């Protein structure tokens, strides 16, 4: 009986720590997206969204989103990084990422706060913009997560 209790305790312990570990990297996109809805309302209306699944690699890499905006309208960009096991950088540029004349209008590392996962950006001028995610290198195998981006508009 003592043996059963001993091994059961070990099993529960290992399962718990594994579950905690898995929870860290789990990405329930719909939940993460729902967390962002109140950040838009009541001023901004939902326009569109993009869930970017991230599979970390041994080398750092980038992934981008082209965002068309219409002149004279107001927009709010909202990001949720809670589904990421390791922090990434987020930049928003006014020109194509390959353009040397581009300006960074938003840089996550400039506004990052410990324990905070939701960040917003409201461009002063509406024109096509480029969201660029920079994913750092990792030696950990199969490390993955997601970042959720929501766009709201106000006419």
């Amino acid at each position, binding site marked *: 009986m003592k043996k059963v209790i001993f091994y059961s305790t070990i099993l529960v312990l290992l399962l718990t720590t594994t579950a905690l570990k898995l929870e860290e990297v789990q990405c329930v996109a719909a939940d993460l997206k729902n967390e962002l809805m109140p950040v838009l309302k009541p001023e901004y209306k939902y326009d569109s969204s993009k869930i970017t699944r991230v599979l970390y690699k041994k080398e*750092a890499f980038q992934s*981008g989103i082209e965002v*068309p905006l219409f002149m004279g309208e107001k927009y709010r960009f909202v990001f949720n990084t809670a589904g990421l096991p390791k922090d990434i950088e987020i930049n928003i540029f006014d020109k194509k990422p390959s353009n040397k004349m581009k300006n960074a209008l938003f840089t996550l590392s400039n506004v990052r706060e410990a324990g905070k996962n939701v960040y917003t950006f409201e461009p002063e001028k509406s024109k096509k913009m480029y969201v*660029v995610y920079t994913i750092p290198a990792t030696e950990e195998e199969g490390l993955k997560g997601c970042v959720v981006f929501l766009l709201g*508009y106000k006419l």
Partner: protein
Amino acid sequence: MKKKKFFILLSSSFLWFACESNNENATVEAVEEITEEVDEVLEEESMSYLLPSPLQIAEIFKNSGLTYIGDLTSPTELAATYNTKYSQKLNFGIYSADMAYCIINDQTQSAIEYLSTLRGLSEKMWMTDVFNTMGLSKRLEANVGQHDSLTTIMADLQIQLDDYLEENGMGYTGPVIFAGAWIETMYLGAKVNQANSNEKLIYRLTEQSVVLENLLKALEQINEDNDFDELIADLKVVNKNFDVLEEGEEAKLGDEQVEKLSIQIIKLRNKIINN
């Protein structure tokens, strides 16, 4: 001895977990340095293309003079004739845009008819959950005449559709549905402009070149099996009209160019709805 083993295992498990958390903190500090090291020339395949909601485009057109003309929208009876997945997706987009057009013009009864048609099409496409969970008809009926509430309901439908496509791994369907919606919204804009020419509306029609650019790229990304060759070719013909535009925020098509664009959009839209 057993107790000792137990405590060693217990300590190891928590230490392992604690170490993982500390590694994360270290990553926070390192990520800025790494960003500078990465080659910032993004490959095309690493880019994705956001497509705006048909509601936003319709609202912008409306604010620029898009009036309501009753018989412009696609007849709901045609829905029964769409028997391929391709025609169903495209016309789902067409009817979504028509519903948005009705909602922004407070034509609630017509909007409800389009909702019913969309529900029928979604069943054919095995997308029943998009409409079943929301009680949309009831919400529309309960908010007749309340413009803001009606547009909020339409925005909720967009959220629901985006979630459904994402959760069911149907991301490739989104650009095709959007193509139908975009073509229909442009069609409505072109027809209203033909009936009553309006500088603001022409400017907004011209501005859609940035959306078409994104739409073409998004369609090309999902065209691995060449299923969308014809649609892409047709949209490229439309896109040629924007080649005359010079770089600049105030760029606007001339009267002849708008007429040429309108004729091509009307032809493409009629081709899609007549299957």
